[in-house]
């Protein structure tokens, strides 16, 4: 009996913790449908009737869908480049013997330990010199050199790719790039997908770099646009509109999470055990 009570108490604790993780988002969605006055005077989990007014207030101030589109224009190419070139680099480092291979590998390991902010000022300076301020190039192209992803995928190839497969393909006369595209990449796909999902979320949520590099209002990405809400006096007084804007910015990533949480969690698990 005591056993059952204790077990029930543990479940109650777990559920309470899960509610703590969900409640802020739930309140956000509910408050997005209520008027500023209602939110200021009371709280509830029952949706209100002011969704339309809030919507008009948000989109009267700025076009959130433009921010959406801008974020997509950065996150999608950056993720694709990261996935493809990291896989290619990792494959070369894992399979071939060539001069400089060890130097490249150790430099990658060293740079994984260097905090991103160390080069921030030099990076900004470089972008200014190249005349790339207010373009997406400095947000996309550096994804080609994602040290952490290359490191992870190199380990991944070493554990999943049988070298005899490559030999067989070579005897059949297949070209090296062809082997990579047709044989190696499909075998690596689960590992690449895991890194790509993480990379997409990271790019989509990125704040500091776009904050520094993008200033034109029509080019702002979603996180920077959302953070600029606070400076608007007319909207800051209408909490309903704030909640709605936040909800719109969060919902897509939640949908991604619903479908991909398994991949994300498995990547964290393997990362921790291998370190």
């Amino acid at each position: 009996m005591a056993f059952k009570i204790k077990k029930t108490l543990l479940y109650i604790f777990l559920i309470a913790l899960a509610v703590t993780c969900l409640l802020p988002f739930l309140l956000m969605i509910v408050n997005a449908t209520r008027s500023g006055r209602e939110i200021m005077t009371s709280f509830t989990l029952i949706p209100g009737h002011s969704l339309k007014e809030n919507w008009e207030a948000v989109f009267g101030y700025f076009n959130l869908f433009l921010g959406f589109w801008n974020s997509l224009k950065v996150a999608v190419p950056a993720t694709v480049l990261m996935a493809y070139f990291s896989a290619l680099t990792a494959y070369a480092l894992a399979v071939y013997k060539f001069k400089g291979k060890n130097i490249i590998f150790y430099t990658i390991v060293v740079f994984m330990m260097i905090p991103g902010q160390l080069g921030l000022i030099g990076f900004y300076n470089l972008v200014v010199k190249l005349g790339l301020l207010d373009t997406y190039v400095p947000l996309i192209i550096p994804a080609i050199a994602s040290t952490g992803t290359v490191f992870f995928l190199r380990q991944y190839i070493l554990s999943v790719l049988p070298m005899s497969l490559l030999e067989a393909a070579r005897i059949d006369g297949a070209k090296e790039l062809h082997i990579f595209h047709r044989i190696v990449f499909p075998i690596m796909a689960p590992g690449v997908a895991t890194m790509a999902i993480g990379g997409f979320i990271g790019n989509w949520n990125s704040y500091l770099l776009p904050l520094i590099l993008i200033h034109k209002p029509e080019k702002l990405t979603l996180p920077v646009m959302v953070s600029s809400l606070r400076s608007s006096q007319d909207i800051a007084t209408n909490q309903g509109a704030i909640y709605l804007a936040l909800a719109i910015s969060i919902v897509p990533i939640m949908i991604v999470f619903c479908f991909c949480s398994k991949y994300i969690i498995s990547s964290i698990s393997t990362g921790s055990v291998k370190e």
Partner: protein
Amino acid sequence: MAKAKTAKKKRRNINNMAYLFVAPFVIVFLVFSVYPVLRTLHISFTEYKGYGAMKFLGFTNYLRVFQDKFFWKALLHTLNIWIVNIVLQLGLAFLLTIIFSDMKYRMKGLGIFRALFYLPNIIAVTSVAFLFQTLLDWRFGTFNQILMKAHLISEPINWLGQTSSAPYVISVIQSWIWFGNSFIMLMAGVQGINRDYFEAAAIDGAGRWKIFGKITLPLLRPILLYVGITSLIGGLQMFDLPFLMCGGTKGDPLGSTQTVTMYMYKFGFETRQMGYASAIAYVLFLMILTVSIIQFKVMNRGEE
């Protein structure tokens, strides 16, 4: 003989393909990772507004960092926020690991709970910051309304307006974002432990806490260290959350939430003293490097 030679030559040709494969990575890496880091080092020895001429100063900027009491205050604030954060985050992750790895209770639903606990981690910090800022609003926030209705407080609390609570609000939110991640790592560690150990210990009559203290904890030590130290490295660079929730680089109230990176950002992008900002970045880097070296030493000792 001749055949062996051509085979060898062919192999060399195959290996030469590797240069082509790594070339894009190497070029982009040199331009966008290596160059900025070296350029920042160069700027740290100069006076530079981000445009115009650079004036070479030698170590002046570094001496200034060491004498700058606001820098050390920012470092203390950063550590203050981080310590409360990591205690909460790891404590909670640990508790959850114990609950889910218990042989007697055999709790169900690990998959779904894990996903729910991880959810806060994938939401953009800008959105999280703004959401909590609105929920915690002194006069109109939903959070104070709930507490007042539950009669836990009689007057609204100005969570982000007083130095006694603002830094810890940041700590709690930071823990809320990261505890799921720590839990997943620790749980993966427990699942990696051979079940025979637990069963043998149970047969020998060892109790739950004894098994935990003698088997689980020692075997989890490397992961625990890894989680703790990566969190310290991340914590020393904390920026987004306090920057967004506490009045930009000022770190309201009274600078109690101003972190080192916010302080650096202020000089780099607000007052345009890029040389000084770069020096701050390098001093912070040296601190992180020291922590990393200690981590490496301690973890290697654990393996021997």
